[in-house]
């Protein structure tokens, strides 16, 4: 092995890390890759598949020389403000968060929103290789009926119970431009997982009054299925070149769910010359009781319930003569788990009586004497059941 290190690359190796008395397992440190190299190699994707296209509106230029000068002037005034200095030195300076938010939306907000949307793979699942920077701030507010509103930002959690009715939507617009608003669920499709449901689609919105637009698809509440975790619901606002009539069947709240199947990418591809995405807001939602009501009262069907499919634990092949293994635990590993659970269930039912109160749980379960002639493995087994350890919990 030493000869390897006498090569030209010896300079890069810290010899203190090599235990020369031992044989080195695997490749020598100069040749082997780190775990990071190997993960990067696995995750490598060709540029052809990772290059992306900006499909959004260009940034409006508002940075002028005057604006820059006024900023400098403003900073100078801040430094001269003695009141502000006192506040800052006493740690009492509290900036106005609403104003900060407003300035943030004007400056670096859109780019950071895009960054977060990428984190949630919003653009990837909406448009594939396309993306846009949401320069237009889309304000979506769900009415909570108690006088307060729940806004949709970028990925905050909103329960289905809070989103039963369509939200108020607001954005900056001049009166004569036309807009399209779409709400789609990226994860919610019941049969085809790479498709979406369109929950709300309003076209030809004049200015920012959504009520005056043509509602093509009526609003439907989010319904994240039980056991499937958090689903994403995305509002996208498109700017239209002129009046448009989408070739989509009108969907009302009473039509079947199948009619709402939607693929944003295909739809956008068809109308891309006439619409441009401008605003973005999305939220996450997970199961609550209103989803069950929705399935029963609106869709008239049973609610599907899912559970995560964990990988099976490894159990090594059974041996004829296993050494140093407790025989009962060893044998149980190779039995049908349903059969074992049945045993536990029968045992439980033996003591239960539907017409009597169950006996109170033992206060000191291990202080109850067991028969003297009981074998020790069975004693341990009984103790485990009394303490509710292990398989007894599966019943």
């Amino acid at each position, binding site marked *: 092995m030493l000869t390897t290190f006498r090569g030209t690359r010896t300079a890069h190796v810290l010899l203190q890390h090599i235990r020369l008395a031992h044989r080195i397992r695997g490749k020598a440190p100069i040749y082997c890759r780190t775990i990071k190299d190997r993960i990067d190699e696995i995750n490598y994707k060709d540029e052809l598949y990772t290059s992306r296209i900006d499909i959004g509106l260009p940034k409006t230029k508002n940075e002028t020389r005057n604006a820059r000068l006024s900023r400098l002037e403003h900073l100078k005034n801040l430094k001269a403000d003695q009141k502000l200095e006192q506040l800052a030195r006493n740690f*009492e300076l509290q900036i106005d968060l609403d104003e900060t938010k407003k300035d943030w939306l004007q400056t670096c907000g859109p780019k950071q929103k895009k960054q977060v949307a990428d984190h949630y793979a919003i653009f990837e699942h909406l448009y594939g290789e396309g993306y846009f920077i949401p320069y237009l701030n889309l304000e979506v507010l769900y009415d909570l009926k108690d006088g307060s509103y729940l806004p949709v930002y970028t990925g*905050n959690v909103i329960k289905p119970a809070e989103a039963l009715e369509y939200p108020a939507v607001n954005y900056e617009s001049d009166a004569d431009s036309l807009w399209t608003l779409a709400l789609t669920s990226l994860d919610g499709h019941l049969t085809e997982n790479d498709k979406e449901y369109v929950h709300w689609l309003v076209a030809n919105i004049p200015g920012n009054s959504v009520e005056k637009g043509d509602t093509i698809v009526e609003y439907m509440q989010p319904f994240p299925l039980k056991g499937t975790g958090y689903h994403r619901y995305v509002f996208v606002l498109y700017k239209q070149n002129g009046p448009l009539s989408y070739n989509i069947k009108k969907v009302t709240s009473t039509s079947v769910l199948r009619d709402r199947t939607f693929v944003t990418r295909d739809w956008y591809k068809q109308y891309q010359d006439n619409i441009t995405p401008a605003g973005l807001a999305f939220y996450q939602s997970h199961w609550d009781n209103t989803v069950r009501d929705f399935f029963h009262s609106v869709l008239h069907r049973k609610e599907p319930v899912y559970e995560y499919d964990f990988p099976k634990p490894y159990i090594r092949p059974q041996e004829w003569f296993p050494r140093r293994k407790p025989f009962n635990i060893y044998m149980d590993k190779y039995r049908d788990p349903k059969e074992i659970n049945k045993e536990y269930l029968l045992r439980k039912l033996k003591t239960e009586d539907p017409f009597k109160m169950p006996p109170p749980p033992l206060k000191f379960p291990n202080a109850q004497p067991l028969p003297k002639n009981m074998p020790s493995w069975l004693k341990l087994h009984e103790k485990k059941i009394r303490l509710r350890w292990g398989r007894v919990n599966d019943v």
Partner: protein
Amino acid sequence: MNYLRPFTVQIVSRNNSTASNVFVNRNPRNLERIRIARKPDGYHLDKPGRKFWHKLSLTSSNRTVTAQVVHYINGPVIEAKTSEWALRKQLYSIKDTSAYINLGRVFAQRCLESGISEIYCDIKPVEGGKVDRFLKEVVNGGIKLEEPETYKKPSPWDRYRPEKPWEVAEE
């Protein structure tokens, strides 16, 4: 990628012919939220450790202080700087303690708006210092500075059955 593992139907007695048997949730943050996703393991001898999904990083340079949420794959996700105009406009100095305090408030707000409320943090601040005040503001803003443990499905022979995180959230 581990977030593409399928969800399969729990045994439903009455047949649901309209719903598919395998449901894939494409949301890349879903498994992290319901605590099933893996954390990058195998670096426990490294310092700083890498066992996290989201990590809080606070860096200060001569001209600015930056707070970031760093994801273990996607890198920096959320960012707040004192030198950005939104903050600088109202601050007296962009490096003093007040700047750190206000940065914490703004940062916490942005994290909550992006649906990230639990962040791993390995910063050990000096008590009463700038960084300490920053972290306190972040906590006051509603951010938890530790990430939950990953849920490991118990094998039948294991002693305990930990609660399933996705069932706890339902109440």
